[in-house]
């Protein structure tokens, strides 16, 4: 892990990975959404709106995985003071927030024809909205902290504590009666028919690769930014 404490070594690896992840992700998404929109059958109850799940489910996963990544990176930052951890956590925040927003919006669009309402304050929807607000707070905090050491540590603490919301989102449909349905995919199997299921894992991996590519891109931007700033400071001092 400390091999990558040297940003130059990290960038040498991140640059090709950004392209590989981005293009393979885009290809998988294209296959998944193309298949999900044209090849798979409609649902016996929901009709065509079932296709929203090919966006909604990966977006929900990435919204949550993004914060999982922030928490893990924050832990690395607080305990091992890894120089790239703060950069990684900050790079995860904006894409994570975007996917959380996609999850909320697509779910709302699905809810109107299926449930008969755009929004309800049940456990699942509320905890997911809280996750989105946590992202906004995290982004504001990270922005305010800038490169200041103590501010970055505070941001990391917030990232770590905010992870408490992740199990709440996941188990909300089990702990409380909610309007949102339970999980369709578990460790033991799935309640989605095979003919409807196959684009879902493709979309899942596709969006995840795209997400990873965006995060790597943002990390490189932050590192380049820091480099420019340091160089300008040196020039001003000379």
């Amino acid at each position, binding site marked *: 892990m400390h091999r990558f404490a040297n940003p130059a070594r990290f960038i040498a690896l991140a640059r090709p990975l950004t392209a590989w992840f981005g293009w393979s992700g885009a290809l998988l998404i294209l296959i998944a959404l193309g298949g999900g929109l044209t090849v798979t059958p409609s649902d*016996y109850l929901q009709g065509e709106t079932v296709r929203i799940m090919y966006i909604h489910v990966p977006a929900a996963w990435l919204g949550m995985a993004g914060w999982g990544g922030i928490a893990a990176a924050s832990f690395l930052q607080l305990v091992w003071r890894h120089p790239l951890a703060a950069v990684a956590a900050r790079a995860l925040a904006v894409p994570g927030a975007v996917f959380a927003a996609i999850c909320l919006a697509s779910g709302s669009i699905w809810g109107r024809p299926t449930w*008969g309402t755009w929004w309800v*304050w049940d456990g699942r929807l509320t905890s997911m909205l809280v996750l989105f607000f946590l992202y906004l707070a995290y982004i504001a905090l990270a922005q305010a902290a800038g490169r200041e050491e103590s501010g970055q540590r505070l941001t990391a603490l917030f990232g770590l*504590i905010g992870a408490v919301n992740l199990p709440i989102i996941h188990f909300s449909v089990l702990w409380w009666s909610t309007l949102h*349905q339970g999980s369709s995919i578990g460790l033991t199997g799935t309640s989605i028919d095979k003919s409807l*299921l196959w684009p879902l894992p493709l979309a899942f991996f596709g969006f995840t690769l795209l997400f990873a590519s965006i995060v790597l891109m943002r990390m490189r931007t932050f590192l380049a930014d820091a480099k420019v700033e340091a160089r300008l400071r040196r020039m001003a001092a000379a």
Partner: protein
Amino acid sequence: MKAKNQRLTLALLAVAAVIGAALLAMSALKDQAAYFYTPGDAVRDHLPPDKAIRLGGMVPKGSIQHFPDGVTIRFLVTDGQATVPVRYSGIVPALFREGSGVVADGRFDASGLFMADQILAKHDERYMPPQVAGAMHKTKSLK
């Protein structure tokens, strides 16, 4: 103890404490955070009439009756422990149907009839194409 190990212990303790606190809060919220009462809860808790609540459960097969005015319906909601009659006037969501889940906003009247102001269909986690559903349920027409 090295500074790094000290930080590791502190961080792990903090995470454990926060998770513990959250679990306690969640179990305390268990009843309050429920989005709806099931008929069993409603009967057990002796909910007073005219208290605004949500009632959720399954609509048993063959329980929906249409009134002659064309917009009023009466149906049953059950959770296996208790069954409650519900009356509603208005447009129901497309997925509201017998054998499926429902969440109704409203209040009980003095006779124990639930007067619903709004009806939401609760979808379950099963997704399948019509052919499969038809083969499984032997339903006449799903379209």
